[in-house]
């Protein structure tokens, strides 16, 4: 069991589309 009863923090997630827009492969993808 978890050491404390502290609630977990909800991480807000971007949508799939928004994720794609933060292009992590920018350098690799650019011509």
């Amino acid at each position, binding site marked *: *069991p*978890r*050491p404390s009863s502290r*609630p*977990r*923090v*909800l*991480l*807000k*997630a*971007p*949508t*799939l589309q928004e*994720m*794609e827009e*933060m*292009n*992590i*492969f920018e350098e690799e993808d650019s011509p």
Partner: protein
Amino acid sequence: RPVNIPRREKDFQGMLEYKKEDELKLVKNLILELKPRGVAVNLIPGLPAYILFMCLRHADYVNDDQRVRSLLTCTINSIKKILKKRGDDFETVSFWLSNTCRFLHCLKQYSGDDQFMKHNSTKQNDHCLSNFDLAEYRQVLSDLAIQIYQQLIKCMENILQPMIVSGMLEHETIQGVSGVKPTGLRKRTSSIADEGTYTLESILRQLSAFHSIMCQHGTDPELIKQVVKQQFYIIGAVTLNNLLLRKDMCSWSKGMQIRYNVSQLEEWLREKNLMNCGAKETLEPLIQAAQLLQVKKKTDEDAEAICSMCKALSTAQIVKVLNLYTPLNEFEERVSVTFIRTIQTRLRDRMESPQLLMDTKMIYPVTFPFNPSSLALETIQIPTSLNLNFLTRV
């Protein structure tokens, strides 16, 4: 050989530590450059998903929300990227569908949410995420899994489509039934040379190949069932549509051949223990069309029998088959106009769409039922072939 210095398994907590700057290297080696047909063949099913989850657990353990977000975004984008690049390769798509689902199952199983912990061991409960609730990310992963599923169906359809008409309708395996061609019909010339013609056997072999790849990737059994149901729907819809457009396919003997082919498909389902996945039911319109080719079509009683038998066919489809029906020999007759009118009158109150052809692009909605794993994270070792020696077992 494990990457790390051997330690007793009980000392591990089922996490993988990595440096922030190694994150891109992690997804590059584990997602972008992993060949499902090469190194991945010998991996335990779902290993990439477990590795990614164990890295995520460590980011959660050190309470670094930026790291958790970044790893999840990087993982999802890498999976999308590899599918953009190799989306026409069934093995790649199947591999990432099963791993995406496994990753999603891990996020649920170790979420700390009671509804997903029922089958966990005590140790697995100890391994639940400590700091973050990733419910929103689970939704994003589920959306991604739906996209991958649809891609898998398209991919499978591209392979299967060219085989269907030839294997289900044109190729004749029952000897002596239709040696005589219907009068006035010439053999339809096929664009495929005879030696390249697909048979029912080719279709069955292809279905087995798809099935074996998905099993090898550890795809959830419930998901395999949905893929198979969709495959059978496509086979049934494409076959029926072609039958409805070709006079040379509307004869008593073609009805016989289709029924034989359907029985072989059912036999395949039985062999794979997939009789309860709803696949057979998707063939019902085709089965009824084949029966319609074979029953008597003369008296009022025949009309009544046809109307109660062909519940999965629309009036337009029934009438079309009757109009196209072509006798093979002097013992048979064309279907009379009066008989067709009788059928139309009997069916006029049916509430149905007037559409003649089936929608071959229709995809059944997919679901990913939760499928927890009994695998103990602390026992997972990383094969050196994955080039992940920058990860440390914790």
